[in-house]
Each structure stands twice: as C-alpha cells, then as structure tokens.
C-alpha cells in the first residue's frame, strides 16, 4: 500500500512523515513524531483524551486522518509549556485536578482553546465546553476550579501587560 507524504507544522516546528492512508493524526503524532502526550482513550471521539488544535480549532486527533493534516498547523500538549508551565498546567497541579493523569493533556488543550475564545467563562460554560473530555478518577469539580483559577490569573496578567 502506498504511503502518503505529509508535511505539517507541530508546535511551531515543521515536520514531515510518511503516513498509511488509514492512519489517524493521533497515531502519527505518537508513532512517527514520538509526541506521546496526546493520549488514546476511546478512539471514537467520545473521551477527548486525544484533543489537539488544528489551525486553531479544537478537534479529536483520533477522528482525523494524518493525511488531512498536510499543510496544517497542529498544536499538542507538548507545545503548551514555554519557559515555564502554562498557568493551566500549574493550576491543575495546585488544585490536584488529576489523579491518574490520562485525561489531563486533552483537558488542558481543550481548556486553553476555551480561554483563548472566552477569557472569562462561567462555570456552566466551562462544563459545556469540556463535556467531551471524560475524567474517570477525579470528578470534575476540581478541574473546573483549576480552569477558573487559571483564567483569573491569566486575566490579571493580561491587565498587567496592557
């Protein structure tokens, strides 16, 4: 079976790889690019553990073929911390908003996408936005509190910078 040559940008770095036509973006990230922070939970778009952004839009990387990423800009959990942890990552630790941690990368990527659109969401808005991210250990209260605390800090920083 002939492979497809895919050229894309992942966390700002240009990358290229050969993908099987049936291969998902999730499998390409993990198996070709060794970016194993993006997790496979269900593989059918229900759990959100594989969340990434593609050209700025939040998607499940298990519901997208690697070949479809050609020419796109992909952002994964590995691109989230810069010099230091992103405020969301820090607040998830402070609030202990995780136990096993398997769902955490997907939730962080999804929460970051929310705060970029809506820096001051209500709890209800956070819950609906994250409805496609399942956590089977912690329960969601601490996750919501961590997101809201990070959002508050980011608003503060934004005001400080302005």
């Amino acid at each position, binding site marked *: 079976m002939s492979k497809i040559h895919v050229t894309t940008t992942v966390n700002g770095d240009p990358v290229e790889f050969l993908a099987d036509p049936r291969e998902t973006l999730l499998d390409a990230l993990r198996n070709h690019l060794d970016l194993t922070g993006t997790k496979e939970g269900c593989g*059918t778009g229900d759990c959100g553990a594989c969340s990434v952004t593609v050209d700025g839009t939040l*998607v499940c990387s298990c519901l997208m*073929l690697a070949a479809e990423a050609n020419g796109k800009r992909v952002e994964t959990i590995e691109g989230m911390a810069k010099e230091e942890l992103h405020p969301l990552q820090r607040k998830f630790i402070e609030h202990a908003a995780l136990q096993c941690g398997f769902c955490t990368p997907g939730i962080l990527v999804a929460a970051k996408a929310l705060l970029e659109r809506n820096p001051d969401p209500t709890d209800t808005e956070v819950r609906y936005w994250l409805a496609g991210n399942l956590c089977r250990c912690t329960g969601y209260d601490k996750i919501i509190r961590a997101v809201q605390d990070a959002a508050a800090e980011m608003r503060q920083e934004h005001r400080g910078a302005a």
Partner: protein
Amino acid sequence: MRYHTPTSFADAAAIAAGTTGTLRFLAGGTDVLVQMRAGMVQPDDLIDLKHIPGVDKIERTAEGGWRIGVAVPGIVLGGHAELVRDWPGVVEGMNLVGSTQVQGRATLAGNLCNGSPAADSVPGMVAAGAVATVTGPNGTREIPVENIPAGPGKTNLAKGEVISAITLPPRGKNGGDAYLRFIPRTEMDIAVVGCAVNLRLDGDKVVEARVALGAVAPTVLLSEACAKAIIGTTLDDAALAALAKAAEGEAKPISDKRGTKEFRIDVAGVLARRAAKIAYDRAKGTSK
C-alpha cells in the same frame, strides 16, 4: 485504501462513479472515522472533499438565502452571527451534535448523509426547507433535504453522486425557527426524540409552517398534519393541543434502549408544542 483529494465536485463524482469497491466521502469524518475504526466500514476508496474550493464557505445567495459548503463545521456555523440571526433553529440543531471537539469537524452534509433518524441537524434543515445540491456523473440536481435519507444509514443518492452544497432559503420577514430534542442528560447524547418548527406570521397569525420530527421513524419526517394544526391560528392553547395531537399521530417510533415507543410518542407532542412556541416568539422578535 486509496485516499483521493479531488479539487472539484465533478472530479469527485467521476472518481466515485469509477469505483467498484466500498466508497466513502470524507468531510468532517466524525462518523466515517468511527465506522472505519469499528471495522463497520473498510473503504477501498476514500474521497476527501476538503480540497475543493468553496467547501469551507458560508455565502449569501442572490435570493437572500445561505449557501453552506459541505465542509463547514458546526463551530463555524455557530459563530456566524448573520446565519444565526436568520436560522437559529438550524444552527442550534447542528450545535447539539457531539462535543466541542466534534463541533470542530462535523458538518451539516455529513450529518445528513450519515442517515441517522436521530441526526440533530436534519429536522431543522427539513423545517427550513433546505435544499441539497447533488453533483453526479451526469451533472447537478437539487433535492429537498427531506428526500436525501432513505432509512437508517442509507440515502437516496445514486452511485457517483455527492452533496456539493446545502442551501437555506431566504429567511424573509416575520419568520422564526427552533429545534428541541430530548435526551436524558444535558449534553453528549443522541436524541430520543427531536422536533423542529419553522413558521411565518402575519400579525399574530401563523400563515406558513413546516414541522419536522426526528427519531420517531426510519427517517426524519416532514409532517403536514402538524403544519396544518397551527396554520391560521395564533398558536393559542387549542392550536398547541392540536399540534401535539398531530405530532403524536405522526410518530411511528420503535422501542429501544433510548426510550419506549409510548414515551417517544408522548415526547414528540411535548417537543412540538415547545418548539412551536419558541419559533413563534422568534418570529415575533420577542425572544432570540
């Protein structure tokens, strides 16, 4: 599997017409990739429609309606203020499909072609009078959206045919639409029953109406009996009772894990009443 990326619908139709094995079109992929992974479908040919110019566009038609490309995802529909103002019911139906992540990819045309009787975007499109533009080996034809599904997982499209756009008619004055569904939770579930109502008023009186019911038959139903029950009325209690009775009469559901036949029939009446009231208020301009 051969992965095709045609740059025109004529080419897509020609590829599709020439295939002999299992074929799937790829727009958002939120159904196709799940089916591939589950082993339900193993395409020999997969035709990605997203390289065709215009598939990601929402454009005003010359008549004042909206032409929606087949790769426009739910999140873009929801963010299009003018479209939401014209057809809030269509957009709220689509926006109920799946999670935020799914909204980033899932499309109206895909939801329609997946052929689920419970597809949340379809009753709204049917009530709105949406038309699918279908491109095939012999050219292009226009088909009312309600004539696309043939039953669960099946469409009336012929070999080589592909939906190339969805067009909503001009909203016009004094019109409103709404979609409601019942699920046993608040999010991330499949409709037990869905109902869309689209109507136009002259003063306080309903002069035009289209009512569509989802998940109560093998395909989404366009109900003339429901429309008749409210046309010519001011949507008073008697009209709402007649509408509910008509919806109950039209519903021919099955019992399954999501709900019993009796429950679905009852809910069809309840949702028809509630959706009609929302559509009426929107037509009046007294609610969003």
